[in-house]
């Protein structure tokens, strides 16, 4: 047997890949069981948040540069898509990629300026950009609809089921792309930056370049997701740029486990489903929701994925001991 056989945790890699394939199959087959449109809507939201949280994770979870303004890209591309649709009649197949492209350009600009600096600069600037955009949407009542936002946008597909499948396929594609990136040399370099940027630079790595590229990929995905959401809701509003959305995305990644891509997927599903299932509790919902998040962060600082994998390892270890 080759001693390098499991060198990069290849068995874990393939096992997770199989896991992702099963997950994709469940996503595609779920509408056979879930027929209620309300639940399909909730699952659409889950897909949307999974895309946002896992794309956020590529830069922030891997390199430790916390992006406090993911909403900037989501809303920027959402509004861009809406305007192109309302004024030029461009349809989603065109506005989604263009939304992503615009977000990528913004990512390049913001990233080039801030990611060469170490410390809290990046976090502060991304936060400011998000807030700035929110204020801009609020005051531009003539061109951007002000507090009301913009309505009458073409729908994403013809039906909620179509929206479900579109978002589901997009989510699965994003997850696979991000997962492969995370396991590539590019992903390894991003991890090295997160662990020790000085040593990474001292190993001949142009850390700024890699961070900016990760930021552009992250922003592009968030942008396409923003435009998708705008078309699915047939409406965009300033709340899309609100820092509470950025904070929610961050929380999903933290609860699931940063720097793993899979963790944020778990976090996004969990928080979306818990939030929706507590709706009947009215105002109390926020209290329980926030309390639960704090408890998870307190008891599982590395996220739920960490607890999950440790539990599996312990179980497998016990089985092996029994076998021996």
């Amino acid at each position, binding site marked *: 047997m080759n001693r*390098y056989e*499991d*060198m*990069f945790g290849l068995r874990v890699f393939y096992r997770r890949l199989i896991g992702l394939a099963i997950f994709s199959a469940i996503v595609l087959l779920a509408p056979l069981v879930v027929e209620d449109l309300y639940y399909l809507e909730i699952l659409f939201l889950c897909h949307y948040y999974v895309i946002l949280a896992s794309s956020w994770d590529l830069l922030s979870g891997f390199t430790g540069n916390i992006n406090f303004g993911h909403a900037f890209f989501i809303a920027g591309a959402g509004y861009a898509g809406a305007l192109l649709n309302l004024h030029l009649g461009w349809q989603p197949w065109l506005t989604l990629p263009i939304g992503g492209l615009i977000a990528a350009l913004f990512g390049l600009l913001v990233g080039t300026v801030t990611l060469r600096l170490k410390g809290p600069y990046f976090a502060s600037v991304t936060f400011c950009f998000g807030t700035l955009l929110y204020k801009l949407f609020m005051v531009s009542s003539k061109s951007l609809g002000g507090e009301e936002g913009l309505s009458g946008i073409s729908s994403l597909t013809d039906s909620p089921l179509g929206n479900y499948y579109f978002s589901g396929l997009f989510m699965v594609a994003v997850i696979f792309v991000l997962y492969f990136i995370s396991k590539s*040399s590019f992903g*390894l*370099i991003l*991890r*090295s930056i997160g*662990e*020790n940027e*000085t*040593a*990474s*630079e*001292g*190993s*001949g*790595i*142009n*850390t700024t370049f890699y961070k900016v590229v990760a930021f552009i990929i992250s922003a592009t995905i968030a942008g396409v997701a923003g435009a998708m959401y705008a078309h699915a809701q047939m409406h965009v509003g300033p709340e899309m740029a609100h820092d509470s959305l950025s904070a929610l995305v961050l929380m999903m990644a933290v609860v699931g486990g940063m720097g793993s891509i899979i963790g944020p997927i778990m976090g996004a599903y969990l928080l979306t489903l818990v939030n929706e299932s507590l709706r009947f509790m009215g105002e109390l919902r926020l209290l329980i929701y926030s309390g639960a998040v704090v408890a998870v962060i307190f008891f599982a600082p590395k996220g739920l994925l960490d607890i999950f994998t440790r539990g599996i390892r312990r179980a497998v270890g016990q089985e092996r001991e029994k076998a021996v």
Partner: protein
Amino acid sequence: MDAVLEIRGMSKAFGGLQAVHKFDLQVKEKDIIGIIGPNGAGKTTVFNLITGFIRPDSGEVWLKGQNITRLKPFQIVNRGLCRTFQLVDLFKEMTALENVMIACFSHRASQQRSKEEKSWKVAMKFLEEVGLANRFNEQAKNLAFGELRLLDIARAMATRPDILLLDEPFSGLDAEDAEVLSSAIRQMHQKGQTMIIIEHRLRDLLKLVERVVAIVFGEKIAEGTPQEIMSNPKVVNAYLGERRE
């Protein structure tokens, strides 16, 4: 023979403290040079200045006829000058092999590798050279201190440096680990690796190097063979203090 590395009149002050003052050094190919000095003499600052982690107030660093004074650390590594770190703080959550692979992804190392050669195989070769091949899949945080020093050297060597700078490689090592490290350094030198070693543990260093530069308060006070340096009264004074009459 022309110098591969030349430092001309380099100075650096932190506030009122003159950390390095008009420091000159010439390094020729295959040289193995030691820089010694008591704690706080400015040895690590010299390394930080050469490798671009700190910008000098004045003076220049020339590598193979190119001025590298204002370049960034990663650019300097890619021009052939790499250092290890005094406080070995590598990529702790990554395996020993992955630690070395990062250096294999540098522009310089990638260019020197054929397309067929896999980066992990190259990284494994460097781990083998320092005797860590059997620990390849161990996370860096689980390695012993001596092993971490060797890993750091393997990482630096994987960038294919013309000149390797070792920052206090013996500090914190027991006699046994120091011997393992000494033999690794000797082997690299025998293969023609040019090296500069900073150290305050003189016993280990003087057995390895051909030439020694002594600095005190950021200033070079002596340069010569280990024997010359050890009998130099200025160096003895710096280490032991002046003899009372």
